[in-house]
C-alpha cells in the first residue's frame, strides 16, 4: 500500500510541490536563522580563540565577558607568576582606542580623514603570546620595531572605507594598493627620514617613487593614536568580532602609549601551566592566592556567550523568527495536505470499502507526510547551506555557522510539522464512512 500512498501524493504535482515547499520553507528558515545565530555567538568570543597559546585567562573576578575588561594593577602579573605550577604568565592589554588616518580616495581623488574606534590588543613584548594565527602580509616580528602595529585584514574596510582593500586577495596587490591610497611612499618616507634618521636610516629609494611602488619598507601605512604615531607593518588574518571594529595588535608597553594614561592598564594575564600539572588545580591555586579569577579558554568562551544570551535581545529575536517559520511552515503544509486529503476523500473511502483498515490508512497518510518531510528537510537544509556558502569568507558580513545540533533540531522540528500537518487528514480519513462512496 506504500507505493499507492506515494503515487496518490505525487499524482497532483502542483499540490505535492506546494506541500514540500511549505516544509522546505520552515526547514530553511530554522537552519538559516539558527546558523546565523550560532555564527554571531561565535563572533562574540572570536578574540578568545584568536588569542591562543595560553591554558588560563586570569582576570578580575567580576569580568562577565571578553569585552568587559576590568583592568588590574601591573603588579598582579608578578603575583600570578609566583603561584606554583605556572610555566609562564604574560600580560595582555585589551581595550578600545581611537585611530586617525588620512588617505587618497581612489573614487573621488580627494583626501579623506578617518577617525575610527579600534580594538587594541597589547601582546607580551617579548613572546607575543596571543599573536594572530596567520599573517596576510608582513612579519609579526616587525612588531619589535618602534611605533609598529599590525591590523587585521577585515579592519581595512573600516579604516579605508569604500576602497575595497579587504577584498584584495594578493598580498602584493594589497601592499601596492595601500601604498597608493596612503600616499606614504612619498610623504611618509620623508617624514620618517626627518623624525628618526639615527634609528631608521632613510630608505635608499628616492622619495619620488611612482604611486603604488614598493619601497622595500615593512611599513604599509601610518595612523595616529592618542597623538602617537603608529606604523602598520603587517596585515593579519583574524576572526571577525561581534562589533566589527578593526583589530590592532601591538606590544603591551606600546599599547599603554596608544591609550590615555590610567593607573590600571593590565587587562588579562595569560598563563601557561607547567607540564604534568593539572590546569584545574593551578586555576584554583591562582584564585585562592591572588583572589583573581582563572578560567580556561573554553570556560571564557562559554561565559561570554552566556552573557550575550542572557543580557541581549539576540536570542529572543532569533527565536521569534524561528518560531514564526515553524508555524508558517506548519500552516502551509497542513493546509495543503488537508486539501489534498479532501480532494481524495472518495478514493480513501473506496479503499476502506475494499478492505483497507484504519491502521493501514493511517500508515499511508504518515508515509505521505514522511516523504514530504524528508524532501522538504533536504531542500530546506540544502538551500540554507547554499546561502551560507555563497556568503562565506572572512570578508563576509554574514555570520554563519552550522553546528550539527542544528541539523538534529531542524529534523525534529520538521518531524513535528509533518505530524501536525497530517493530524487533521488522519482524523478525516479515520472517521470517514466508507458508505460515502455510494453517494453520487
Amino acid at each position, binding site marked *: 500500500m506504500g507505493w499507492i500512498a506515494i503515487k496518490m501524493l505525487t499524482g497532483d504535482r502542483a499540490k505535492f510541490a506546494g506541500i514540500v515547499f511549505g516544509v522546505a520553507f520552515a526547514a530553511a528558515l530554522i537552519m538559516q536563522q539558527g546558523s546565523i545565530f550560532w555564527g554571531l555567538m561565535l563572533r562574540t568570543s572570536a578574540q578568545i580563540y584568536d588569542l591562543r597559546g595560553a591554558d588560563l585567562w586570569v582576570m578580575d573576578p567580576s569580568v562577565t565577558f571578553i569585552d568587559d575588561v576590568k583592568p588590574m594593577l601591573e603588579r598582579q602579573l608578578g603575583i600570578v607568576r609566583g603561584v606554583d605550577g605556572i610555566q609562564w604568565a604574560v600580560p595582555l592589554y585589551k581595550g578600545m582606542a581611537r585611530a586617525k588616518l588620512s588617505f587618497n580616495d581612489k573614487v573621488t581623488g580627494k583626501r579623506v580623514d578617518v577617525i575610527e574606534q579600534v580594538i587594541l590588543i597589547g601582546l607580551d613584548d617579548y613572546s607575543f603570546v596571543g599573536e594572530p594565527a596567520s599573517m596576510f602580509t608582513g612579519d609579526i616580528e616587525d612588531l619589535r620595531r618602534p611605533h609598529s602595529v599590525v591590523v587585521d585584514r577585515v579592519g581595512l574596510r573600516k579604516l579605508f572605507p569604500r576602497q575595497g582593500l579587504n577584498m584584495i586577495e594578493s598580498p602584493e596587490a594589497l601592499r601596492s594598493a595601500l601604498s597608493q591610497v596612503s600616499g606614504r611612499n612619498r610623504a611618509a618616507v620623508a617624514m620618517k627620514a626627518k623624525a628618526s634618521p639615527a634609528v631608521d636610516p632613510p630608505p635608499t629609494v628616492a622619495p619620488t617613487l611612482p604611486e603604488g611602488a614598493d619601497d622595500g619598507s615593512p611599513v604599509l601605512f601610518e595612523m595616529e593614536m592618542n597623538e602617537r604615531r603608529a606604523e602598520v607593518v603587517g596585515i593579519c588574518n583574524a576572526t571577525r568580532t561581534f562589533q566589527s571594529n578593526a583589530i590592532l595588535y601591538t606590544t603591551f608597553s606600546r599599547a599603554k602609549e596608544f591609550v590615555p594614561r590610567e593607573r590600571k592598564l593590565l587587562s588579562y594575564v595569560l598563563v601557561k601551566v607547567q607540564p604534568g600539572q593539572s590546569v584545574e588545580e593551578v586555576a584554583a591555586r591562582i584564585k585562592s592566592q591572588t583572589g583573581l579569577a582563572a578560567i580556561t579558554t573554553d570556560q571564557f568562551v562559554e561565559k561570554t556567550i552566556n552573557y550575550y544570551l542572557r543580557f541581549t535581545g539576540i536570542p529572543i529575536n532569533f527565536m521569534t523568527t524561528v518560531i514564526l517559520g515553524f508555524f508558517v511552515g506548519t500552516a502551509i503544509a497542513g493546509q495543503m495536505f488537508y486539501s489534498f486529503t479532501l480532494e481524495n476523500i472518495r*478514493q480513501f473511502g473506496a479503499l476502506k470499502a475494499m478492505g483497507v483498515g484504519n491502521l493501514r490508512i493511517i500508515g499511508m497518510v504518515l508515509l505521505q507526510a514522511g516523504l514530504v518531510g524528508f524532501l522538504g528537510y533536504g531542500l530546506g537544509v540544502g538551500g540554507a547551506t547554499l546561502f551560507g556558502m555563497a556568503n562565506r569568507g572572512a570578508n563576509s558580513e554574514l555570520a554563519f555557522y552550522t553546528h550539527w545540533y542544528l541539523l538534529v533540531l531542524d529534523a525534529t522540528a520538521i518531524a513535528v510539522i509533518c505530524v501536525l500537518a497530517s493530524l487533521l487528514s488522519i482524523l478525516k480519513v479515520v472517521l470517514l464512512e466508507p458508505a460515502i462512496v455510494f453517494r453520487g
Partner: protein
Amino acid sequence: MPPTPAEIEFPQARQKRLAVRISDVQKKFGKGEQTVMALRGVSWDIAAQEVAMLVGPSGCGKTTLISVVAGILDADQGSVTIFGDDITAMSDRQKTRYRSFNVGFVFQQYNLLPALTAAENAAVPLIVQGVPRRKAIREATDLLGQLGLGKRVHARPSQLSGGQQQRVAIARALIHKPKILVCDEPTAALDHETGMIVMKLIRDMAVAADRAVIVVTHDNRIFSMGDRVAHMDDGHIDAVLDSSGHPIPATFAALEPAGP
C-alpha cells in the same frame, strides 16, 4: 426428495444455490425525533449465479441495504449471511478483512485512483490482500485484456472514457474473485449503449456458481439484464419480479443454506 411448494412454483429455484440471505434487517439513523428508519425489516434471498437488481425511488434505503450487505454499515437488527458467513456477527476488523477477500464493488462514480494506471487500479484489491505488486499487476493486465482494455493498461483514468473507466472498475471488483459483487448504479454515468455493454460485461464476467451479483439501479433500460428485480420502497422490499416480470417470493424457504 419430493419438490417443495416453492420449487413447484419456481422450478428454476432448485438449480440455484443460496448466496445471500438477508433476514429481517433493520437500520435507523439519528436519534429521538430525528430518527429515520432506513430499513424496516428487510428480508431477501439472493441466489448464486444470477444478477439480482434492487430498484426503488431515491431515499428508499437501497444504498443502506447494500452497505449492510457489504459489511460497511452495521444493522441494528437482523442478519446477513453470505454463503453461510454471518456478516452481522463479525467485528469491524473481521468485516474489513472479509470485504478485502470476498466483496467486490462497482461504484457509480468509478472511484478509480487518478494517479494510478488502469492496471494498477485493477490490481488494488490483490495488493490490499498482500499479493506482491508485480504479480497483482500482471493478473490485472490479463483481466483487463479479457475486458477489451489490453492496449490501455498503462493509461490513467483521466485518459479513459467513462465506459473504459467502468470496465477498469469491473476488473478491480472481480480480480480477487469475490463471493459477492455489489454494483451501485453502474450505468448511471454512461450513455445507453455503453451502459448495456457494461451490464453485459457484468453478466458475462461476474456471474459464477460461487458468486452473487447485486445491482442497484434506477435505469429501467437494464432491468431486462437482471434475473430478478426487487422493488424497494420506504425501507422494505415491496415485490420481487423475475426476468419476465412475474412476481416471485423474496425469500426461498425451499433452498438449503449453502456452507462456505
